[in-house]
């Protein structure tokens, strides 16, 4: 006989958030969706009398210090997936039921664990450790288990009679039936699954569409209910014990190359690449040292990765000889590189991204940045450092002609007082970008000094003169 377990997590995203911010003060929190409905509540919010699907206004009135955070289905799914991955270590057939549930097929596991009790002991221990609120129940079919779990039946049993009795007593709002259909049933005086199941299917077929019949069929187990069981996530994790301890970091490249080749093979099989490696070096006495090596454009070739690793290892002082290496890749990224044309000559050259990776590996990522034009009046804000190779808004094709106002090629980050005589040739251009600080207005001029240099000057409200840049 098939047996299923359903786990329902009523506040997965919120519980996850609270765990990651453990030390923050205890406040009532609610997640709200875009329609301003409460989707998830923490315990304090529940204590204040808030209910799911409540409107924001009544919620706020009930609980004035309520904190609101957006409900993010994508994040919720991520957490759910993560929970499933964790449980996968204990139970093999797990199917996601977004946004908040998991189906677990048990009949295969019972033999392994020698019964339902021991299985549940292990599983619930794991669940409790995860520390997310959950509801659960067994059922003879996936839908039966889900229906029972949603009403907090908490049945851990394979007793058909008990499960069936509980199912028949279930109210319709615990089912998967669409809200309008549930209301329709209520308006016929039908409130429980038992009442519904007692009516001959023929009578139902004369009155309702296939949605109801197919649900009831699956619920009873008459129809096959296909579940999409979880596949473990791919990744790469290898440990290499060195044959002899290595004290020179440059020598580490050799053994590392082996690992990287293995990685290349695995990436090749999956037609994937990856953006980041975690390299861990193990020492006898000191704690292991972890290096993170990134490639902005994504790489799969061992040679390319090796080059990047070399750059980092070159200057790395080792506290003592290394005896083992571990290489981890947590995530494989999409498609492998576009196949290059046969006759393209670019092969040897570096792409901008490759150059960037090398610069970052060499100088540290903080030392490399780009420059973008910002849509701002104030010269200090009109250009800005940005992530390298990220295009600013001027490149989005929406810049007004004023975006290309005449500005000096070299802008001083701190304007210098003007100390030499100049002749003004253009101006003033008055800039007062902040309506709150009229006193901070500046009148900009273009002037020329005796050496013939073109200066960008301004005079502030106190009639003081400054140099802000030089024209080329």
């Amino acid at each position, binding site marked *: 006989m098939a047996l299923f377990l359903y786990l329902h997590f009523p506040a997965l995203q919120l519980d996850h958030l609270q765990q990651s911010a453990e030390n923050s003060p205890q406040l009532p929190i609610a997640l709200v969706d875009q329609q*301003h409905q409460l989707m998830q509540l923490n315990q304090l919010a529940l204590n204040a*009398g808030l209910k799911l699907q409540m409107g924001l206004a009544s919620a706020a009135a009930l609980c004035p210090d309520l904190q*609101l955070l957006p409900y993010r289905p994508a994040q919720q799914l991520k957490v759910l997936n993560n929970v499933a991955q964790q449980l996968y270590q204990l139970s093999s057939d797990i199917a996601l039921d977004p946004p908040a549930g998991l189906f677990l097929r048990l009949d295969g596991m019972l033999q392994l664990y020698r019964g339902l009790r021991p299985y549940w002991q292990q599983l619930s221990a794991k669940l409790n450790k995860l520390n997310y609120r959950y509801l659960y129940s067994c059922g003879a079919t996936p839908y039966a288990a889900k229906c029972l779990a949603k009403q907090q039946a908490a049945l851990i049993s394979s007793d058909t009679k008990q499960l069936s009795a509980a199912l028949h007593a279930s109210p319709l709002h615990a089912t998967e039936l669409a809200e309008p259909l549930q209301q329709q049933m209520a308006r016929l005086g039908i409130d429980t699954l038992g009442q519904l199941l007692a009516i001959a299917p023929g009578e139902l077929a004369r009155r309702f*569409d*296939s949605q109801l019949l197919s649900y009831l069929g699956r619920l009873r187990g008459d129809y096959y209910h296909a579940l999409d069981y979880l596949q473990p996530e791919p990744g790469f994790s290898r440990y290499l014990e060195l044959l002899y301890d290595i004290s020179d970091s440059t020598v580490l490249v050799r053994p590392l190359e082996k690992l990287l080749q293995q990685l290349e093979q695995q990436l090749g099989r999956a037609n994937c690449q990856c953006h980041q490696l975690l390299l861990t070096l193990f020492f006898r006495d000191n704690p292991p040292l972890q290096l993170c090596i990134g490639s902005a454009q994504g790489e799969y070739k061992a040679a390319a990765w090796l080059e990047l690793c070399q750059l980092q290892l070159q200057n790395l002082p080792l506290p003592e000889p290394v005896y083992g290496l571990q290489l981890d890749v947590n995530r494989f990224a999409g498609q492998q590189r576009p196949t290059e044309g046969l006759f393209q000559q670019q092969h040897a050259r570096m792409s901008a991204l490759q150059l960037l990776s090398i610069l970052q590996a060499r100088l540290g990522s903080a030392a490399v940045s780009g420059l973008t034009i910002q849509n701002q009046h104030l010269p200090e804000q009109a250009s800005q450092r940005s992530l390298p190779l990220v295009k600013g808004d001027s490149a989005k094709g929406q810049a007004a002609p004023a975006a290309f*106002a005449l500005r000096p090629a070299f802008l001083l980050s701190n304007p210098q007082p003007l100390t030499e005589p100049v002749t003004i040739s253009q101006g003033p251009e008055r800039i007062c*970008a902040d309506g709150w600080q009229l006193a901070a207005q500046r009148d900009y001029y273009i002037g020329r000094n005796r050496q013939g240099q073109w200066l960008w000057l301004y005079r502030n409200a106190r009639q003081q003169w400054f140099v802000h840049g030089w024209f080329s």
Partner: protein
Amino acid sequence: MDYAELFCQSHFSFLQGASSPQELVTQAAALGYQALAITDECSVAGVVRAYRTINEQQLALKLIIGSVFVLDKLQLVLLCPDKTAYSELCRIITNARRRSSKGEYQLTEWDLMSVKHCFILWLPSGDLESDHYWAQWLQKYHAGRLWLAMRRQLSHNEQAFTDYCQQVASQYQLTQVSCGAVLMHRPERLALQHCVSAIRAGKPLRELGRELLSNAERALRPLPKLAKLFPQSLLNESCAIAERCSFNLSELKYQYPAELVPAGQTASSYLRQLVIQGSKIRFSDGVPARVQALIEKELALIAELNYEYFFLTIYDLVQFAQRRHILYQGRGSAANSVVCYCLQITAVDPRQIQVLFERFLSKERQEPPDIDVDFEHERREEVIQYLYQKYGRERAALAATVISYRFKSALRDVGKALGLPVSQLDFLIKNIQRRDATSSWQQQLGALGLDSNSQTTRQLVQLVDELRGFPRHLSQHVGGFVISEGPLYELVPVENAAMSDRTVIQWDKDDLETLELLKVDVLALGMLTAIRKCFELVQQHYQRSLSIAGINALGDDPAVFQLIQQADTVGLFQIESRAQMSMLPRLKPACYYDLVVQIAIVRPGPIQGDMVHPYLKRRNGIEPVSYPSAEVEQVLSRTMGVPIFQEQVIALAMVAAGFSGGEADQLRRAMASWKKTGELLQFKDKLINGMQNRGYQLEFAERIYQQICGFGEYGFPESHSASFAVLAYVSAWLKHYYPPAFYTALLNSLPMGFYSPSQLLQDAKRHQVTVLPVCVNGSVWDYALQPNQQDYAIRLGFRQVKGLSAAGAELLIQHRPAAGYSSLSQLRQAGLNCSDLQALASANALVSISGDRYNSRWQLLDKQQSLPLFCEGLAEKNSDEENDLASAAVAETPAKYQGGLLPAPSELDEVLEDYAATGLSLQQHPLALLRRAGKLPRSTSVAGLSAVRHKSPVRISGLVTLRQRPGTAAGVTFLSLEDETGTANVVVWLATAQAQHKAFLTAKILQVDGILEREGEVTHVIAGRLTDLSSELAAFVSKSRDFH
């Protein structure tokens, strides 16, 4: 040095200008400008306010009327040198506006070509091709009236642009003139200007960057600065242009439609003739000499002020209503005149109430005549269409209402501009209690999680304060029509309203008043509909013909006033609210004028001015009636020395504080709009000092001022109250003598008034009126009277059935067999669709043909019974396959009644279903069921409260039908709890409500433990403990379903 600013936009260029016309003219005058042109974009909506400010403050500044237009890359300003040019401008704006939907405009080249009188200031764009095209074009058509407007905004590369303009000017022989393109009256408004720009762009400020103004140069600038920026010749030119602009708004003279007066008569003689005719109808046994004298006095005054046409226009309107049998009633100061009584504009009989007729139109108060006419709310549109048809769309349009930023809208828009998340703003808006007297909204922001020291919060607070009162858009006035002799668009621009087929002018009622243009108010009133329907029912079923004037003429009826004194006023006009009901037994109105007072006294004005208790005490003889002076006695004698009405307060300002007529009129206007503008404050000192100087006590003066503030938006004049009292009395009379007809008419006129059908029917039952349920064979669309024993019973109409279409109900009634329907298939054959049938089943209207609602629905669901395809709606929804299967099965199982498959609903289920399907139940009250089931231990019923002693503890339970937090009662919420015996009043103090938030806010059925308090015949329960019993009901029915 002299300068005239010829290009200046006020905040009537919505979300561009950042200063009001008033601020702009005041500042321009202070800076010593010679003239200021208000040139809003395709609009003259702000000019009257500027005009009024200049006149009121007697500023040495010339106002020029103009408007700025944008057509692709062309931008130009049109200015009006004279009245012809002004009419031309109005016409151009009207055309451009009428081409587009509300709030937008579309200018065409043709519009520009048709300019023959306006001056044109052209603003080059910098785009070479376009500028040369337009320079040529403009020079070709408008030489001599054309200037090139030079701006200096200290923007980037301005020198080059200036040179360019000069070159264009010399190439096309254009004279240059300086202009400021002003958007602000002071540079300090830059932050607000940035903010409104962001609102306009629909983006947060920080994303706008260079789209914002780069500096504050678009403010009105001091003359020395302008002298530095512009060559003298350009500045001189601005004055030369201003010199040539001689048009003044005071030249606008309003011409009434002449067709109202028959040929050979003057307006005056025709009005006199109509009044004499009318007086014969109104005073069938001869006009009393006193009244005749009044008529003469009024006619003379009307003639002196030239208001004949105004009265004739309204007379024409009510004549139309009479012909169409639309009930109406006039109100307002001019309405309470014998002339209006004779013209049948009102039904207020001068013999019944003398006091009113002494004040009619007043020369010294300088206020325009005020007549509002209320019509039946369901038929007002007929009157409006009559106006359009009679005068045409060119000559009749609605006045505008300027929709301004209020606190919430300002907070939302400023918040968005500052980049606060929308959900946070929603949260703030929902939680800020503007009535909280203990902390200001700024303080509450902190409590609601905004860091009150952060820059954003401080900016938010300041900008919200500045933005409040700024106009957002023009909307249509509820019913104020402007009608003229010639095309309106020569007087004022006309634009489209949001409603299709409606047009509004660009001025609101204050503007019209300023310019002394008259408007006719055509308003809608639900009670008139109800009264007319009741008259018809009485005529039809009791064969008695009634009219408002007829009932009035019967004199004050003690039996009717007894009903009013007992606060048995559910469904009556004006005196049905909670507050009114609690005041009625104390005030005990016993005659018509008492009702006039009653209606006006339960209002924020008198309450805030603390005038209610003194009046009660004096009326009940507890306090002697006294007057601080003889002048005051004259004003206040009819209300026992206590100012109750708006007119009295204005009159007090004149006699006791020495206000001139003009000042009193300003005060009246300020009262009407003070919530928006806060203008009242400027009168405070003058009022209080004035009264003290004349020997009145400070405390009395303070109270008068408080009352003025309280009147604010709810100002309630005696002249309106007088007309309302007539309707209140008529409705009470009908309720007393013809209760079934009264309730039926009221129910057929919903939505209106305070009460739901459920509450009205419960009140009807308490008056021994039988109510019959909705029935497929007994009901019609409306509620109806059906013979029942000696009297009539009320039969629920199909209109009460939620989800039943009017068309479906019509089919049902049309095809109903003489003996009634006997099966569902007959109904299907009549053409009712599925949702209509479902609605009928839900309302239990099918009980006679297919059993209770569960089994009726079960049968209706059966697809086989509905075949062959009578039921279109359902057939379409099914897949073909299912249909095939179903039709194959038809032969085997013949459709037959299968009643009893489902168990019948329980009694409580029936009640809940009744509420869900019709909003009411004629069966047991849910509270009665709960009581019977023992769920309300020790609860006293509402009827039982009369046996409870004053100040003793009591427990009551009931459906919460009303949560009301009046602005006048600080921190108090009134709850109405309804059970099977009636409705009880519960008072919840703020602290109680806060401590028991959850039950207080969410309970549908509430149990209250509290103390009973009784004052005279008024009973309240002061709440102590609140318990939510809603879940009891849910548990009781074993399923949770929202109801009521």
